């Protein structure tokens, strides 16, 4: 997926009605099992030569958007999730990918708050597992990717919803005091609190509305570039 392009496009938007089964109540019994997974085990091929595979498509530019090539057979349940989001928000969101157990949604920074609210209230996702920043100097943007899961809905136990947005990237960042800003999702998903603090110090993305944008892992007096940006180079490498 190209989690970098925040501009919603309409070409990859699925249009069919959501056909997944309705989500069960969030507070169902904790020990109810998710549907057993049909992952069939292919026969062991001990001496498979994987050499042919990696060479298939060496794209030189890393941020080129990959076309939806796997649209031959999308997993139904996951398709239903993405359809619900598309139905609600139309062309404000862009479905980046629909894979087994993973649904990727790209959304612009203006709409991320509403989309996240809908994901929580309408789709029963309840916590964020991981928040990652990805720096794309080529596109002048920093992507922030939320991996959202659900504990309370057993049918979603296997699912991870990958919500990604982009912030404007500054050539000479002044963390907290430049245009690299995003609205926080802390009031939607409380669990992002420390994750967003980490993104702020590592990428310089200031989260507006986050009550606590202090440094977390770096020293308080760190004066260099945010270290996970691509232009911060490790010595000797």
């Amino acid at each position: 997926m190209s989690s970098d392009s925040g501009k919603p496009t309409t070409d990859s938007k699925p249009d069919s009605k959501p056909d997944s089964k309705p989500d069960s109540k969030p507070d169902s019994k904790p020990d109810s099992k998710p549907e057993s997974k049909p992952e069939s085990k292919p026969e062991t091929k001990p001496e498979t030569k994987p050499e042919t595979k990696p060479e298939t498509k060496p794209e030189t530019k890393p941020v080129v958007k990959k076309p939806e090539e796997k649209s031959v057979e999308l997993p139904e349940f996951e398709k239903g999730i993405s359809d619900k989001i598309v139905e609600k928000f139309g062309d404000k969101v862009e479905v980046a990918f629909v894979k087994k157990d993973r649904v990727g949604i790209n959304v612009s920074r203006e709409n991320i708050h509403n989309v996240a609210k809908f994901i929580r209230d309408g789709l029963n996702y309840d916590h964020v597992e991981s928040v990652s920043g990805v720096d794309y100097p080529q596109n002048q943007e920093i992507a922030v990717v939320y991996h959202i899961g659900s504990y309370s809905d057993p049918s979603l136990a296997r699912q991870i919803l990958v919500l990604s947005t982009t912030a404007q990237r500054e050539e000479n960042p002044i963390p907290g005091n430049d245009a690299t800003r995003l609205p926080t999702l802390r009031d939607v998903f409380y669990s992002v609190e420390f994750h967003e603090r980490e993104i702020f110090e590592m990428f310089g993305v200031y989260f507006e509305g986050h009550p606590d944008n202090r440094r977390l892992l770096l020293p308080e007096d760190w004066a260099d570039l945010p270290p996970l940006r691509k232009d911060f180079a490790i010595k000797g490498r």
Partner: protein
Amino acid sequence: MTTELPQNIKSGSSETQIDKSTSSWLPPGLALQKVDERIMTLNVGPQHPGSGHMRLIVQIDGDYIVACDPDPGYVHRGEEKMAEYRNYITNIPHLERPVIHDSCNILYPYVLGVEELLGIEVPERAKYLRVIGAEINRCIYIMYWLAIYGIFLGHSTMFMWPTGDRELLIDLMEKMTGARVTHSHFVPGGVRNDLPANFEDVCLRQVNYFEKRIKEYAAVFYDNPILISRTKDTGVLSRQDAIRLGTTGSVLRASGVDFDVRKKEPYDVYDELDFESIVMKEGDSYARSKVPWLDMMESCRIIRQALEKIPKSGSVRVKLKPNPKGKGFDTVYKRVESGRGSLGCYIVSDAKPEPYRLKLSVPSFRNLIALPYLLKGEKLGNMPSVYWSLNYWPVEADR
């Protein structure tokens, strides 16, 4: 689900407002704060023998904790940045450094992710070997954690016993992989080496003895009235809040949420093995300290079954090119259940030998958010038991 935030949460930070009235704008966190006369601020760590490499800024009013502000980062080594400069194979040894006791499990999601990026199917025997390695490592980690939990509570027998019994499994891993702690055993495509001769018998014997030993811990530790009086009903995390805070692993399962990645999203051969995911309802320190112990018994069951079901011969590794490249620009997010909880790895690949971005979503970091919440209103004397019952490993949280 209600939209309001968990009550009582005050992560030390919520009252920190940036004071923009000063002439020069200060970065967040460096603005001055008003001090209350009654409140004393206490620094725990980062050199505290128990807290590990982690500072807790605790504000106390008399004997009671008013607010706690965890300050991790003293062992931040930039694993994620380093990973962007090394190729997919040379990333293996340094990625297991955050938790050397649980090194198989911290590599597991990374290895699974790289395999999905490359589209490799792993031999059946390698899958079983991985499960055995991961479960032995889980026990090794939990034993170490349990030893420190014991010494935290002043229970020195509980320090000696797990430390000693842990050696059994460390020897086992040494036989299996050649290294006592940092095994670097899992590689994309399988495992590095096949088992040595006669390993199955030795493993079965050691694991059976190990299980017998850990059952004895009940008498000296888990049924000990002193332990119970110190940990029961302290640091209670309700089911609702455990979900909302996004905790994971033993913290989550001690609060009554049945979520074990091995059950919910089985990887490798976990769906063919019969085991329980341990859930307790209480949500207090006692439950949180008991869940990992019960987990170890399930691990022993898993190891025994895996030793039975493993294909007796066959390849253990698909050979890769020295510098594997992904299939074009792609992302993958994989997660496994480690000794502390769900451990995720997010890889962004741009068809180069090195990952474009690698993010470890570690359970210690995710559980850390519960600490200020649990400690608020608790007595200072309960701080060690609550803190360590979170199954927190500072080095992993910092990465």
